[in-house]
């Protein structure tokens, strides 16, 4: 399983994916970190069969809520905001799908963010959401082993 935490550590709740990846590494689970730029993501998962992408999202749900999307089906997501030139993980997935390079199994764990201001801290609710994601990933790993 390839686990990729996406985000920007300088922008508050946008660090959620990076926070999750760092927590997993501390717990002995291999996880990569990426800013979310599509060419980098597509390169990272090109030889992987089973991928989890963790990122902050905005859906209007309560802060810290965890969403899980099966990205084998087209994602009905809005435009990526705050990513380099408006191309982020959502676009990476759809571009990869169009190019026929999408991994066989790919899921997105989205943690509802609230504050993305430059220099702000991660919201306590988002930090709790990160822990929920960690727990869910461990459940996945235990199932597989």
């Amino acid at each position, binding site marked *: 399983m390839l686990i990729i935490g996406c985000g920007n550590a300088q922008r508050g709740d946008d660090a959620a994916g990076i926070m999750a990846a760092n927590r997993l590494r501390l717990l002995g689970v291999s996880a990569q970190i990426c800013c979310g730029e599509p060419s*980098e993501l597509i390169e990272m998962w090109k030889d992987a069969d089973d991928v989890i992408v963790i990122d902050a999202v905005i859906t209007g749900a309560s802060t810290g809520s965890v969403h899980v999307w099966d990205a084998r089906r087209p994602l009905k997501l809005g435009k990526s905001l*705050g990513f380099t*030139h408006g191309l982020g993980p959502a676009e990476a997935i759809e571009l990869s799908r*169009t190019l026929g390079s999408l991994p066989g199994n790919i899921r997105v764990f989205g943690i509802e963010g609230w504050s993305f201001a430059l220099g702000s801290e991660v919201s306590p609710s988002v930090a709790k959401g990160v822990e929920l994601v960690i727990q869910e990933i461990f459940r996945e790993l235990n199932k597989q082993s």
Partner: protein
Amino acid sequence: MSRRGTRTIKIDTLARVEGEGALYIKMAGDRVADVKLKIYEPPRMFEAFLRGRHCSEAPDITARICGICPIAYQMSALHAIERALGIQIDPAVRLLRRLFYCGEWIESHVLHVYMLHAPDFLGYQDVIEMAKDHRPLVEKALRLKKIGNRIIQLMGGREIHPISAAVGGFYKTPSRHQLRELRGDLEWALETSLETVRWTSSLPFPDFEQDYEFVALRHSGEYPLNEGRLVSNRGLDIDAAEYEDCFAELHVKHSNALHSVVRGRGSYLVGPLARFNLNFDKLPEVARKAAIDVGLRPPVKNVFRSIVVRAVELVFACREALGLIDQYEPPNTPRAEAPNRTGVGQAITEAPRGILYHRYALDERGLIVTAKIIPPTSQNQRRIEDDLREYAAYLYACPLEEATWKCEQAVRCYDPCISCATHFLKVVVEREPNSWS
């Protein structure tokens, strides 16, 4: 269609640019009554973050201003700080810095040409739609971008916010063997860049030319990246230390990002068009020939043709990288000594989008007392508004939806990295009664 009618073009979110903002254009008949490029992300605080930090931290801190051009920020910071400290760098370090910058130009220009700008000319909403019909093109772009990223990763330790650039040089320098391993990919990239020039030159361009003051670095011996004097096509020829004497930053009510002007004159244009027009003779022969073969010679005054100019600069960056790799011998020490001292230093380097100015004042401990950072997109903002004022008038006869789309495209010609200034664009079209639909 009534010539007496008014309409307003408002775009809530400008797609395929970096940053958040809004574009507002109000038209009265065939006359543009108002143009506002509204930038509404909170002002960057980096100039304040830097105060009190040791100057050695500036490259790593400023690199975080932008995810697509971190090296530009590092280079401008390093050159300014080294000037303040009176440091001369090893020629091998100078070579490595140019190579580092070539990596960034490649990945940034490829991203813009293929994924952000090309969809406009081909009639697609985005690169995902474009990839459905032009899969080989997009796959080629991803491979090209990866080559630029590879240079950055090799030299910088990682692709985003690289960590090896330091005051006086690098924390770690690559071996000749490591650089030579890039040759094969760069040779492919050079050929692909030449194809890119030919392909982009065939795209349909509106006939829109303006009388710009182009501003760019100029160096006596090379196409500019890190060094040179600041020149323009209207007689400017200054050292970086004179920048603030000749340019002013103005606050405008509708934007968090300051507008730059040439004192006593007004807006100006930085970036690929400016570099190309002011340094055509310094391009390597393969790049000059590629431009001439597609009918591109200075002065290029149509900002929509910047996509072709970026392709020519791709050719330059690939050719330059190959040459630098062949010349490279590792320095005796990767980093010169940098004793603390009081000083003030300014530097301008050529980010992919244009000149990036840094100034630092240091105290006797090497701590930053003040910092000033003026990104290229800030400098182009007023020029973007001036262009839209003229271009929107051309679009008077277009249906509103088409005019809105075309205005958004016009902004993308500048490849604005508004996160360096602030963030995204929303374009909103306002229509008043009695205007045509």
